[in-house]
């Protein structure tokens, strides 16, 4: 349902973006997720495919980024499969052409056997971009660290940090872009609770002409 809503939003917003001074881009991604969970000395490794969507909307300085994704993770042996849902809402400030600072919440939820575990982080981020070929290719590195957070099952405070790096390049014309990225995040909770998520993602973006 949420996927359909995102798709509808993209279709509806594209004509608006073409007429306004706002910058917009809409990303769709397929990614391979690798999750390593540890609690009380018990380790689990799961992996699976996730589909996600991302929208970036902003003017010259202020930017809003929304990201949502979901998928299924499977473990080896008797490990019960998990449904994974991720999302983030970030407000950014484009301090320079190569630097954007972000703040906002990001959350992740696993559902297995009718029970779920939720991670919520309030984070600050910095995205650094470098141009490889002007107007055609750029690399980026994004680092984040949480200022606060929480986790359920077991309930408690949580902290986290993460990084993402990759390459963005224009695929066709002025409107179609592609992104190859690697993301790694770690969440820490009370009582030796640790959750490490790696993402290998390939995304395609539609950037409406201005």
């Amino acid at each position, binding site marked *: 349902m949420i996927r359909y809503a995102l798709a509808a939003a993209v279709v509806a917003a594209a004509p608006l973006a073409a007429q306004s001074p706002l910058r917009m881009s809409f990303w769709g991604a397929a990614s391979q997720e690798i999750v390593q969970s540890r609690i009380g000395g018990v380790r689990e490794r799961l992996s699976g495919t996730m589909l996600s969507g991302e929208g970036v909307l902003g003017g010259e300085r202020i930017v809003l980024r929304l990201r949502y994704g979901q998928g299924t993770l499977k473990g080896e042996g008797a490990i019960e499969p998990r449904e994974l849902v991720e999302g983030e809402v970030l407000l950014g400030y484009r301090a320079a052409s190569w630097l954007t600072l972000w703040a906002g919440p990001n959350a992740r939820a696993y559902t297995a056997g009718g029970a779920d575990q939720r991670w919520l982080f309030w984070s600050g981020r910095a995205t650094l971009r*470098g141009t490889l070929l*002007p107007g055609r290719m750029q*690399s980026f*590195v994004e680092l984040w660290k949480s200022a606060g957070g929480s986790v359920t099952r077991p309930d408690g405070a949580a902290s986290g940090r*993460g990084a993402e790096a990759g390459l963005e390049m224009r695929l066709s014309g002025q409107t179609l872009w592609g992104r190859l990225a*690697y993301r*790694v*995040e770690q969440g820490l909770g009370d009582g030796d609770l640790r959750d*490490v998520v790696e993402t290998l993602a390939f995304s395609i973006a539609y950037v409406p002409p201005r």
Partner: protein
Amino acid sequence: MTRFVIVLTVALVTFAAPLRAQSADALLAQGIRAYQQQEYPGGAWLLRRALSLQGSAALSPAETARALMYLAATELSRDQRDSAIAAAQRLQALDSRYRPDERIFGPPVVALFQDAQRSAPARSGGAGAPVATATPRGNTIAIRPVGGEDRAFRPGTGAFLLRITAPAPAEVSATLTGPDGRAIRTLFAGLVRDSIDLRWNGLDIAGNVPAPGRYLVTVSPVGRDRRAGWSLRLPLEVTRTAVDTLTLPPPPADSLYRAERGTYGRAWRSLVPGVLAGAAIVVLPGIIANGEEASSARLIIGGTVTVAGLAAFLSQRPGRTISVNSAHNRNLQERWRRDVADITRRNAERLRQSQLVIRAGAPTYSPSEAP
């Protein structure tokens, strides 16, 4: 002996002048008689001869007025209305209070004078339109604006009117020159019989609206009259009513252009972000999630990003033409040129919709002008 010479000189001066004056008077009298006998072509010729005499043989102002009055009536009677109006306006220029004697001249002649008064420009003192005349071989050629000295009209649709009058056929050209002396248009070239009205539609030969400034209409003889060596000049002050035009876009700023040839600086600036991002992908798991085994698949992505940086470095190495940047710069220039052409076209359209205001100055006669 000395006394004899003095007496002879005085006698010559005393008797010769009336003899010459009498000849102008005689021509006038014969012209009037010809009018009364309805011999209009001959009458017109006699009256013009009388009017063309110069110096001491010239008619007195009162006789000149009388001659012009009869000339106007004669020309009207032989259906040369433009010449008749020209004569009437010359008479009004000579004596603005002059009125035809209704006991001698019929209603058509009186009406002609009223028309001449109406068509004369509104000048202080009520004088007629500015007229300059050239008199090659006794043919009084004149140029003057028609319908007043000032005229406002839309270029291409309205027109500024000039009239050249020549009682005897004359081959002339009328050329409009711009403030820089270059010819804008040839308004006329050919034979003038009696009179001809010239129209300038406010456009140059290419169909453009000329810039405001001082223009000049020069009438000079051509063809077999070419050697006469005179010209009539009518200055025109051309202005335009205010019109809102769009400002042309400035050329693209230098900062928008991209280097078309690679340099070491640019090549390194392309390499560094690629290599750093590739390295970050390799080392970040160890920093972010120390102790966990990271996926080796990340090395493929890290390697891809690094290779992309290397490729970017090579594509922008010193001296190499960067075709992408060349295309970008070309597009930038072409887009700017298109915008300029578009706005220029729209401004020209707006200027075409505005009114051209033309004020005729005092025409002058130059006897020494070589054609």
